[in-house]
């Protein structure tokens, strides 16, 4: 298995691949992942220019540990195959497939990646895939999409297009996204892949942004798509375990390991009843703390 499948992805920051001023030093803000956009942000007559820009940026600039994801154009356009070839040749880590509604779409992209990895001498299996779900049909097919390929590491909700398809709009309350968020996180967990929330575009409403990030963390999401470096600190703050969480999780892991040897199944830690069901959660907190660089 590609070890990067489970890497830390609290923040996935979108950048227009055609804008040198944006992509030249985006790593300084330390998002976990950068999504170089060849799709919506790039005008129809600049698709080629965006690819040259992407290719030379990725083959030249050291992004210092930030994951490099490329959002290709939709499979209903004439651009996506060339996007895949360019992205793979550039040495990207993953490809984000927009408007996903079926596992066949993921398989099609995978076939193109396999071909490109051979042509450009990239190690087989290096390039991962994530899917963006942007429609009611996509939400209904989420589990099949998540299980479409061994390369799939995650699925993301794209709220703008999804709410249009639902014949509503982004309200700021999250009510219009409730069902999709719930369904996507359930599908992702069932398929054992990660799940990412949609962007929050009202940059003047940082309190609303914080509230939304707190909500999606409690729902089980692994991270959030973002559109501005100002959003990174808030997401990392909320998604990084606190010192209290870490100390408690350490105790839980230690106690479960010890009590298991003594044949004890249920016991208390800091006054809370604990059994084996808490083990994976506590390990996850410690893994997250390690990945975040605070443990």
């Amino acid at each position, binding site marked *: 298995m590609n070890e990067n499948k489970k890497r830390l992805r609290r923040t996935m920051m979108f950048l227009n691949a055609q*804008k*040198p*001023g944006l992509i*030249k030093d985006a790593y300084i803000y330390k998002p976990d992942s950068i999504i170089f956009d060849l799709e919506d942000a790039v005008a129809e007559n600049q698709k*080629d*220019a965006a*690819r*040259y*820009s992407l*290719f*030379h*940026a990725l*083959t*030249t*600039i050291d992004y210092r540990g930030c994951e490099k994801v490329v959002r290709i154009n939709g499979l209903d356009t004439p651009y996506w195959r*060339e996007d895949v*070839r*360019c992205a793979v*040749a*550039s040495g990207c880590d993953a490809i984000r497939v927009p408007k996903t509604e079926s596992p066949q779409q993921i398989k099609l992209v995978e076939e193109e990646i396999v071909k490109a990895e051979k*042509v*450009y*001498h990239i190690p087989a299996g290096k390039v991962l895939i994530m899917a963006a779900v942007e429609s009611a049909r996509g939400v209904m097919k989420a589990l099949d999409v998540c299980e479409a390929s061994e390369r799939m590491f995650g699925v993301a909700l794209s709220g703008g297009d999804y709410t249009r398809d639902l014949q509503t709009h982004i309200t700021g309350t999250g009510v219009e996204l409730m069902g999709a968020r719930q369904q996507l996180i359930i599908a992702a967990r069932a398929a054992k892949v990660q799940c990412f929330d949609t962007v929050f575009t009202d940059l003047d409403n940082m309190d609303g942004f914080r509230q939304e990030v707190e909500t999606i963390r409690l729902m089980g999401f692994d991270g959030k798509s973002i559109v501005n470096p100002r959003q990174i600190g808030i997401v990392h703050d909320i998604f990084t375990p606190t010192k209290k969480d870490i100390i408690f999780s350490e105790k839980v892991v230690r106690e479960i390991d010890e009590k298991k040897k003594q044949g004890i199944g249920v016991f208390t830690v800091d006054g809370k009843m604990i059994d084996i069901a808490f083990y994976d959660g506590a390990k996850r907190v410690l893994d997250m703390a390690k990945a975040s660089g605070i443990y």
Partner: protein
Amino acid sequence: MKIVKPAVAGTLESSDCQVTVESGQGEVELELTSSVISQYGEQIENVIRETLDKLAVESVKITVVDKGALDCTIRARVECAVYRANGQTGPWREIA
């Protein structure tokens, strides 16, 4: 590679450069304007000429207006303009 028709790539935004190519008179005729010409003019010119060499462009009139672009941006814009002028798209490994 031949310049079949005039083509432009890039913008005049900060950190970018705008490259215009037209058919030449049997040589590389370069016109460079840059906000950092006194510090980096020679380096920018070298990047442009190397990129044209790599693409085997021997006859071209090329005009570059630089707004503080990195070398990788200059390469990207020159290639884009040349490929547009030639009606092709990039063979990615070959231009690396």
